């Protein structure tokens, strides 16, 4: 019996790759190889492991979500260009045109901020005027802004080492840096769903929360000088920081995204913008997907935090306000998932719940640092 029918030749995932997929993968392997060969002496075994794990992980993301390849390539080129322009001298940030006005860390982050604001405007224009052009512009600006912001973080990482080898550290150690990270994570998650669900109309809402974060960032930097690179206090000098913080921000970003979609759902249920936004069913699905990925990552992040705490403070859990609020956030979304998945709840209640969830998350993220005292001392306003 012959079975060579097209529907039966299960396409092998390797055979499905196009040229760019392979180029991308090869570039990543070579990049990691070069890094290991050239800087291996400065890296400990954890650095090696983390670097090596990044290769398949990034390949997988790029293969699964194609635009990510271009994004990563652009970030790599710009970051390397920035590092090359520095030539090991921090003062060149003031002297070299491209550094001063494009890709030194602060400038790149300022570009990110400006592009994000413009993207917000474009998405709203697109939504209100039913203009596909507006939405596409928004999307493009958002991509470029994300490239700039990510480059900014990489440049900042390098700059911190130029300040002194003992000062150098990954730029996720204070409130300023993690706000940049938050904006980037939320933007990337949104861009993924935009393609996955083939609609740009939710962008207007998601951009609101990103813009708010950027506004805070600007205020924080202009009025408090928070953008200045500071050395790490002993408690933060740990490998765990590098894995704990980014994992957390996948969670925070996803929850923020879900909440903004929740707002859109609530508006549509009241008949506002109903004809312009995607159907409620689609938005609810995005909301669920976002909360699911956020919950999964937040679970890992909390566990990583516990492992770190075990090392830094001697106990994996000691009901420090930050820990406690992380637990509250986690319990909240666990309840949300139960309601949706096992009780089959839909509609306004879940949307409200997601919005309130963001309020709880925001408190855990910044409120705790502002109002409560504890051991998590990395960001005081």
């Amino acid at each position: 019996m012959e079975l060579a029918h097209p529907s039966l030749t299960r396409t092998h995932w390797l055979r499905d790759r196009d040229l760019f997929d392979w180029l991308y993968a090869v570039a990543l392997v070579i990049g990691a190889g070069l890094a290991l060969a050239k800087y291996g002496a400065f890296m400990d075994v954890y650095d090696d492991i983390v670097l090596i794990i990044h290769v398949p992980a990034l390949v997988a993301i790029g293969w699964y979500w194609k635009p990510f390849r271009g994004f990563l390539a652009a970030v790599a080129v710009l970051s390397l260009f920035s590092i090359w322009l520095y030539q090991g001298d921090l003062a060149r940030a003031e002297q070299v045109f491209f550094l001063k006005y494009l890709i030194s860390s602060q400038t790149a982050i300022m570009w990110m901020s400006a592009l994000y604001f413009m993207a917000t405007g474009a998405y709203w224009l697109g939504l209100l005027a039913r203009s596909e052009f507006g939405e596409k512009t928004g999307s493009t600006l958002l991509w470029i802004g994300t490239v700039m912001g990510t480059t900014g973080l990489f440049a900042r990482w390098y700059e911190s080492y130029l300040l002194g080898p003992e000062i150098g550290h990954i730029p996720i150690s204070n409130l300023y840096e993690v706000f940049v990270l938050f904006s980037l994570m939320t933007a990337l998650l949104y861009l993924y769903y935009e393609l996955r669900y083939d609609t740009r109309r939710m962008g207007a809402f998601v951009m609101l929360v990103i813009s708010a974060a950027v506004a805070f960032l600007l205020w924080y930097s202009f009025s408090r000088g928070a953008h200045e690179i500071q050395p790490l206090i002993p408690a933060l000098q740990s490998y765990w920081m590098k894995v704990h913080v980014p994992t957390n921000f996948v969670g925070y970003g996803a929850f923020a995204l879900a909440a903004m979609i929740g707002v859109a759902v609530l508006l549509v249920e009241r008949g506002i913008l109903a004809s312009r936004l995607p159907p409620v069913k689609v938005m609810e699905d995005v909301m669920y997907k976002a909360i699911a990925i956020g919950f999964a990552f937040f679970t890992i992040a909390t566990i990583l935090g516990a492992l770190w705490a075990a090392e830094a403070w001697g106990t994996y859990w000691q009901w420090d306000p930050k820990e406690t609020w992380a637990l509250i956030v986690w319990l909240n979304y666990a309840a949300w998932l139960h309601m949706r998945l096992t009780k089959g709840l839909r509609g306004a209640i879940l949307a409200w719940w997601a919005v309130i969830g963001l309020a709880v998350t925001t408190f855990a993220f910044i409120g705790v640092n502002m109002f409560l005292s504890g051991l998590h001392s990395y960001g005081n306003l």
Partner: protein
Amino acid sequence: MQRSTSKALFELLSSMRFAISLLTILAIASVIGTVIKQNEPFNAYLNQFGPFWFPVFEKLGLYSVYNAGWFLVILAFLVLSTSLCIVRQTAPMLREMRSFREHAREVSLRQFAHQAELPDALPFADRQARVAAYLTHAGFKARTSERADGVLLAAKQGSASRAGYFLAHGAIVLICIGGLLDGNLPLKIQMWLGSKQTTTGNQLIADIPESARLGVNNWSYRGNLFIPEGRSANVAVLSVNDGILLQEVPFTVSLKKFHIDHYENGMPKRFASDIIVTDDLTGESFEHTIEVNHPLEYRGVTMYQASFEDGGSTLRLAGRNMLHGPAAAPLELEGQVGETLRLNHPKFSYALELTGFTVFNVEEMGEGVESATGMARLREHLGSGAARQDSGREMRNVGPSFTFKLRDEAGQAREFQNYMLPIQQGGRWYLYTGMRESQSEAFRYLRLPVDEDGQIDTWFAIHNLIFDPARREELARRVATASFGDAPAAAPMRERLVETASNTLAMFGERGYETVGRFIEASVPEAERERAADVFVKILQGLVWEAWMSARERAGMEPITINEDRAAFLRDTLAALSDSLFYESPLYLQLTGYDHLQATVLQVTRSPGKPLVYLGSLLLVLGVFAMLYIRERRLFVLLKHEGGDLVAMSSNRKAIDVDETFERHAGALRDLLTPSQDGAAPDQTATR
């Protein structure tokens, strides 16, 4: 009757509603402990909440919420509810995982949300073979059930999603149990059983009774080991409620040296303790350095760098007179941090408690320069993330400081913080001394201006003259002479000024500027007050200047003339004289020397629940991913001899991707079962 009650109870406890309520209650209860600072000394709570609420909150356990009985009960219920939920779900879930539902009836398949007709043109056996092959290719496990009118291929994938449920929920039970073991529940049980009792903190270790000591066999604890440099310790202190317990550890730790390294900008860079650990049983010993983020585990006990304190530094002090009246020579004192000295004097009697000493005090100095505006401001924020050099602010080490309490005979204490070295402020240098009534207040600082030699001797010399009633007349006379010369003709004016000046000085001696200000308000019409105040200030400055000159003469120093610097010193001196009247200590204690001795605080823990918690965490992650990302799908293909074939799909989740998946499978099957037009179909007879 009995059976049905317990059944109802089981249903309730294992129900989703109950579980979600518990999660919500737990979340809310946890908030309390983040709002009320936990495990503070009871005195602090008494101050904060007052005598009425303090005992109420204490009864409710709000000062240690996470160890309160009621909180543990909620946790216990969560464990119970989750366990019962698992018990209840086990049988149905296992059935679900195993079953293919190959006995589903056609009518029920036709009611599925996802179902579609399939082409039935190919011969029956061919259709069945193709479908079976497709299902295998698409990653399904299938079972075939023959029926009278045809065959049902029941297929499924992603059953592991259900295993995720067991993993995640089992993990929660594990984590909670592990957490309970490591919490202070075991300790509480020991205390309930009556064998152990807390005691107060301020006594010698040797005096602490057996009932407050826990042996090395205690299997779960968390306490602090306090070790000064050059000393050793083998008992940790556990704080419980408002008392302490002593925990013996199976080894002795000696501190060789404690290190604090700083970055250039003064931020702390490294805290580390060089220790020697000696096993009490075998006598073996080894050296090790414990740092923040680099703990040491030995004999099942883990030691962490928790904090550091003064280990009893020796301080040398000069007590300088702050009372009114004739000058006294500075009082020489020496003591160790942690010690209480007696200050006995005909005029006062205090207990001086030396409470703390720090060598480094890194403060942000400078007022900052005006920020640019507009584009220039933006440009300042471009470039690298390095701190700007010209911001006008910098971090600076302002040198050693120490804290102490002065307790009077009634037991009332005031707390002071004195810096050893002058600190620059607005281009001038001062010695700072802070005072506060209670822990909850911030220090109020008195700044004593230092003289051209960088000493405070001049200020004290002036102070002693200005506030000595016996000297008033003399100073007033000097001012008068300086103003009007000593010509006899000016005598009436001089006399008037002498009177005014000595009255002013008497007033100033009461409460400084405050008394003078009140006097002006009471006796001068509003319109002229400002001028009057000017006059008083001029007179006071004249008096201070004369006191200064008189002190210099007495010390046999050259007379000096006024200049800008000295005028500034004069103003500062006057302000400090006025403020010093509110400084509630008969002495200013100047730190003149010290021998620094550090102590480290290591936290020692034994957490038998840790492996359980870590295992639970791993299972939790696996379980959550399995539940959320493995999709359970069931595909049913009903093939009938008579035609009228059907494909239907069910899933445990309602999501949009179920629609997509169904479309994909149904489309593929449709393609596969449609005889091809070009004659390549394997069996031509099917095409009529």
